[in-house]
């Protein structure tokens, strides 16, 4: 397993945001985590990359216990997250944002990303805050890829985007996965997430309620009713 999460718990004051979560992501997989707003998806992701301190549990990445590793050490190990709301550096140029993505590597190759995202190549000297929402999401993806990730964590890449752009971003995510990057995708848009992933976890009130192959989850009556609006 590339990523193993065992009995993970995250508390904010007295609130138990994540209570005893187990997750596995194998090398080369595209796995999604779906669930309603406030189910604890983002907290789970933040705990994996050290942005929130865990109350309990073990997080192993590539065989190594990273439960207490400092945030900035993870990109060097190939564990890279694209945060919710994209988190681009709005006052830096596109080029500078990409350079920061490769910070852990001491400078990377932006040419490959400009090839993948021609829109960004056109806007390389533009201040990132002036890009459209979709372009910003592309920039966030490109910036993460600059670090040459082994495991890419994506937090709600569809958030706030027009449907056309959501489709485009998901296509890009599928491409990235096809090139051998392992992806753990957290998404509210359950249908899209299940359509592009191999396996899925369904989270409810801080715990995993269901898990299985994505194709099976798409047919599961409970999932269809609660998350696919049928």
């Amino acid at each position, binding site marked *: 397993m590339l990523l193993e999460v065992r009995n993970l718990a995250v508390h904010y004051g007295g609130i138990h945001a994540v209570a005893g979560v187990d997750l596995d992501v194998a090398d080369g997989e595209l796995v999604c985590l779906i669930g309603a707003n406030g189910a604890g998806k983002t907290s789970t992701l933040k705990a994996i*990359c050290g942005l929130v301190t865990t109350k309990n549990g073990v997080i192993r990445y590539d065989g190594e216990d990273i439960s207490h590793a400092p945030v*900035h050490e993870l990109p060097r190990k190939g564990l890279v*997250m694209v945060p919710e709301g994209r988190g681009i*550096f709005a006052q830096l140029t596109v080029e500078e944002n990409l350079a*920061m993505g490769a910070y*852990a590597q001491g400078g990377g190759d932006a040419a490959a990303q400009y090839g993948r995202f021609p829109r960004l190549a056109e806007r390389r000297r533009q201040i990132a805050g002036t890009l459209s929402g979709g372009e910003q999401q592309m920039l966030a993806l490109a910036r993460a890829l600059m670090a040459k990730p082994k495991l890419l964590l994506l937090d709600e890449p569809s958030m706030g985007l027009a449907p056309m752009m959501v489709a485009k971003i998901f296509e890009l995510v599928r491409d990235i996965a096809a090139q051998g990057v392992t992806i753990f995708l957290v998404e509210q848009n359950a249908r899209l997430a299940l359509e592009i992933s191999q396996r899925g976890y369904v989270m409810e009130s801080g715990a995993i309620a269901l898990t299985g192959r994505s194709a099976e989850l798409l047919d599961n009556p409970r999932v269809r009713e609660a998350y696919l609006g049928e």
Partner: protein
Amino acid sequence: MNGTPRGAVFVFGLGLPAVDTFLQQVINGLTAGSVYAVVALGYTMVYGIIQLINFAHGEVVMIGAMVAFTVINALAPSGLPPLAVVLIGAGCAVPVCMLIGYAMERLAYRPLRHAPRLAPLITAIGVSIILQHLALLIWSRNVLAFPQIIPSRTYMIGGAAITSVQLAILAICFALMAGLAALVYRTRLGTAMRATAQNPQVAGLMGIDIDRVIAATFLIGAALGAVAGVLFGTYYGLAQYTMGSILGLKAFSAAVLGGIGNIPGAMLGGVLLGIVEALGAGYIGDLTNLCSYDMLAARIDDCAGGGNFVLFGSNYQDVFAFIVLILVLVFRPSGLLGERVGERA
């Protein structure tokens, strides 16, 4: 500091028609202002990255001046070339100040990184008091006179005088500003500093060790402050343990004038503040000389036979920085180049 800058020509417009008061005061103001700008950078960089007004920064500048004073005083009789002595003095002040800057971040501010904003602010005032009193213990309460080892030459340009000391200060300060701008806008560390200032959490996710970036910011600010302290001491010819407060407040005003957190703003604010202050000092005597107003002159005995009755002399110079600060806070709180209003302050 109310001392008269050595080598600077102060003119009050009375009886010296050969000298262009305006140009002269602009030159004097530009010199002091470039030093304010270098100090203001220390305030604005720290504010930009952790939203802390580091009130102890003025004391770092003072300690820079004090250390340089001690070294220059000790080496002055040694027969070394004067320029070498001053350079060694600055060479000692810079690492001492960097150490102090690093220590205050590590010991006083880092533990309070996630505390309510008032806590680090009050701590900064505490650090300032500690440093000031340490300096009092080491260097006494006396005004220390910098030995005048660099001979000052005066050049005339367009009816105003500029000294070699002023030229050196201008050259050094503008070189420091250009160097800092290159560091912040052209290097990997500088980009990481700007990224951390904008979003520390995401900067961490990119592999940037934000603790190191913040420490680097303090080190750079302290090094700039040390050089400014040496220049200030050399310019005015004196140093005292209290000099950091007024200089710090002026530089802070300059940073606010330019837009706190904005690096080009601090440079612009410093230079503008120096010029405003010098022009104010140059003209306030004339403007408040009641004898120059006919209606009043007739009623004031002192005015008889071409006498003067001046309400406010150039010793009111320090007032202008704070008038500027108040005007900026009232009419343009975000400063000249700032966008973010200090809603978090």
